């Protein structure tokens, strides 16, 4: 089903809840591989919830319906010289509701954080069909429990996100990208250290593996002309870098993994993923994406399990069922308790989330 308005969506969820039908929510469909396969009776697409509800450029705040794509929102914001400082893959398809639910991000996370750091309000339709909201429409509010953060990364298991409010930023006047080529794995983090010591403030930093043990590291500066120029020249004096366009990086292979460790542990990450064909890494944050061919289920599961002994691995897509999350921590009891309170009948994407939630 594809409701054309929030009211229709709410009615649909309420009716499904009354009939105890299980529901799977889809935004742009860019992250459907994330999580375990869910059991469901109905699929609800948010594409019809495509209105920009309220945009106050002078307050740098925008409220959108969940089905608005990132590209559509950016176009609207650009008309006022602003942007949402979030750059996940596939902006033409990815919706804001989906980006929240899947916690999608790109290299701008280096400076601006992830969706949790930019969302300021949310309204949802609960599993039982009731509407509820949290946060607010101003950039700063601490009233009530933080429902917007709870929704980030919740994968449609706690409620249907219907609108969200974000803080937006001015589009920088100037930007520049520099790339260091052929950086050895052990030298990627020292480049971060060099940048920090020089008090440079990149908006984005991305390491891309070109061959085993060899990386290209892209650094993007944003701001006003004077600051960008100064930072670019300073980095050129400190490291072997060349001007470039910001790279468009996509993982290769049928198996896609999101991996994480401490920023200083890149060598450990590379060693844990001997099967990876592609590997990219946000070196200030300690998070990256790997792509690999996956010849058969048993070997792949074994390789992923082995990697999990030293680093954090989430399977984002695989050609066959794999444990997407790895062994749960002691916090599982709280994740379960939250799910039981928000969706006591277990109707929203049952089985998709951590620990079989």
């Amino acid at each position, binding site marked *: 089903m594809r409701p054309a308005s929030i009211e229709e969506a709410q009615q649909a969820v309420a009716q499904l809840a009354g009939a105890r039908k299980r529901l799977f929510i889809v935004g742009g469909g860019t992250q459907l591989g994330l999580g375990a396969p869910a059991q469901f009776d109905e699929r609800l697409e948010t594409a019809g919830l495509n209105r920009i509800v309220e945009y106050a450029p002078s307050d740098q705040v925008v409220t959108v319906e969940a089905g608005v794509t990132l590209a559509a929102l950016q176009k609207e914001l650009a008309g006022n010289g602003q942007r949402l400082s979030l750059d996940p893959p596939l902006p033409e398809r990815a919706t804001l509701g989906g980006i929240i639910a899947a916690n999608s991000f790109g290299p701008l996370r280096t400076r601006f954080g992830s969706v949790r750091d930019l969302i300021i309000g949310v309204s949802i339709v609960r599993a039982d069909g009731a509407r509820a909201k949290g946060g607010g429409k101003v950039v700063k509010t601490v009233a*009530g429990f933080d429902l917007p953060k709870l929704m980030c990364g919740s994968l449609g298991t706690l409620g249907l996100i219907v609108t969200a409010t974000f803080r937006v930023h001015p589009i920088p006047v100037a930007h520049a990208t520099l790339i260091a080529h052929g950086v050895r794995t052990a030298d990627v983090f020292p480049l971060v250290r060099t940048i920090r010591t020089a008090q440079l403030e990149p908006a984005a930093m991305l390491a891309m593996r070109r061959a085993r043990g060899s990386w290209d590291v892209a650094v993007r500066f944003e701001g006003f002309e004077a600051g960008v120029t100064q930072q670019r020249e300073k980095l050129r004096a400190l490291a072997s870098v060349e001007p470039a366009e910001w790279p468009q990086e996509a993982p290769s292979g049928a198996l896609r993994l999101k991996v994480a460790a401490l920023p200083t542990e890149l060598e450990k990450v590379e060693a844990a993923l001997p099967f990876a064909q592609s590997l990219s890494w946000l070196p200030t944050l300690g998070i990256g994406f790997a792509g690999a061919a996956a010849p058969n289920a048993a070997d792949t599961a074994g390789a992923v399990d082995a990697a999990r002994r030293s680093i954090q691995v989430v399977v984002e897509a695989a050609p066959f069922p794999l444990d997407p999350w790895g062994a749960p921590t002691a916090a599982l009891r709280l994740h379960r308790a939250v799910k039981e309170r928000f969706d006591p009948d277990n109707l929203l994407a049952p089985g998709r989330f951590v620990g079989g939630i």
Partner: protein
Amino acid sequence: MDPEIIARFSAAVGEKNCIREPEQLRTYESDGLASFRATPGIVVLPASTEEVSACVKIAREAGMPIVARGAGTGLSGGALPVAGCLLMGMARMKRVLQVDLDNAFMRVQPGVINLDVSKLIGPQGWYYAPDPSSQSVCTIGGNVAENSGGAHCLKYGFTVNHVLGVRIVLGDGAVIDLGGPVPDQPGYDLTGVVVGSEGMLGIVTEVVLRVLRKPEATRTFFATFPSTTEAGKAVSAIISSGIVPAAIEMMDRLAIVAAKAATGVDWPDVGAALLMDVDGPLAECEHTSASAIELARKCGSLEIRVPRDAAERELMWKGRKSAFAAVGRIARNYIVQDGVIPRSAIARVLEEIAQLTARAGLRVANVFHAGDGNLHPLVLFDARVPGEEKLAEELAGQILRTCLRYGGSITGEHGVGADKAQYMPEMFSENDLETMGRLRCAFDPEARFNPGKMFPTPRLCGDKEQSRT
């Protein structure tokens, strides 16, 4: 209280860390919001997660509510005891457990003082960004409970943007780690839920903080204006130009008078003043501060002052940060509010506040975070004058309602606590509050932690089977 229960607390934390004397209990009767008072049954000062857990279990068996307290500087009554409760003072848990600057995090106990974090790593050129005005005394644990902000959260965000993980003791004494220095742990963002939960989900006993490399340069200026209207226009012009100031603070005439009386800053008597910081790489900073000064002039600034050195800059900020206390110099009593409005509405809302104030026959000093529209109206009154306190409370309430009418919030950084629980239904629907209550029930089904705060009416979690019917 049952002597056997007292003996058990005493065994858990040591006799000298159990406070029972009525004289000493009085210290804990209120936090920074002194108009609310209640006496705890007992105060314990645990030194470790294990001791916190042991005390939680004892309190549970004794059926006692539990209230945690950091430095007690909160302004919403978040650390206000429940009469007869177990009050857990976190002041002894003040160890820094780990410093890892390469990986940009620190692990600290909740009793560590906010400013001490930055002091510790300052020599290496690092700092912790959230800077509530009380930062020289308030604790990280209290900051986590209230999701504290500060002048510089305009650019850098609040406590929640700088906490990577917490260790929390739940109502049954279980110890759970949420998040940590490695990003995006699978599961719900429960760290984000715990930060700002006003001590109602459990007791946080360790915090993983994100710390930042200091910016290369900071440029500060102080600009005076004939009135808050021109100052408000300057704020809008600066932000619309694409500059993201580190901080941009506004003070009105009364607040300036108070700051002068308290700190000796030589500010002129004017209708309004802005204090602004930009920081970042040197050339960026020079450019943005020059542009901002130009815009302030265009918007009618009377005078621009640029501090000559770090000492002068510090004095300017001292004038701003001590504003609440300073108001004590010009009024016997005052109420601090914390409402938020869209930035573009500042001039209109200040005008409405002025009208409401005149109608009430009182005085209001305004000193606030103009960049994010977080007002701090200080409603001045004299409690010795019969009826004046009530008038002041009514005026404070009218101001909050004005903020809500403009699409804002009842609190930007102080928290709801005991103080603003009554206004929650004006900002949120019954469904909204019931949904938030579900989070509380998931963490703390017995409502043991800090009951009576945030929500206007106590909520029962009930049996899960019942909620299915």
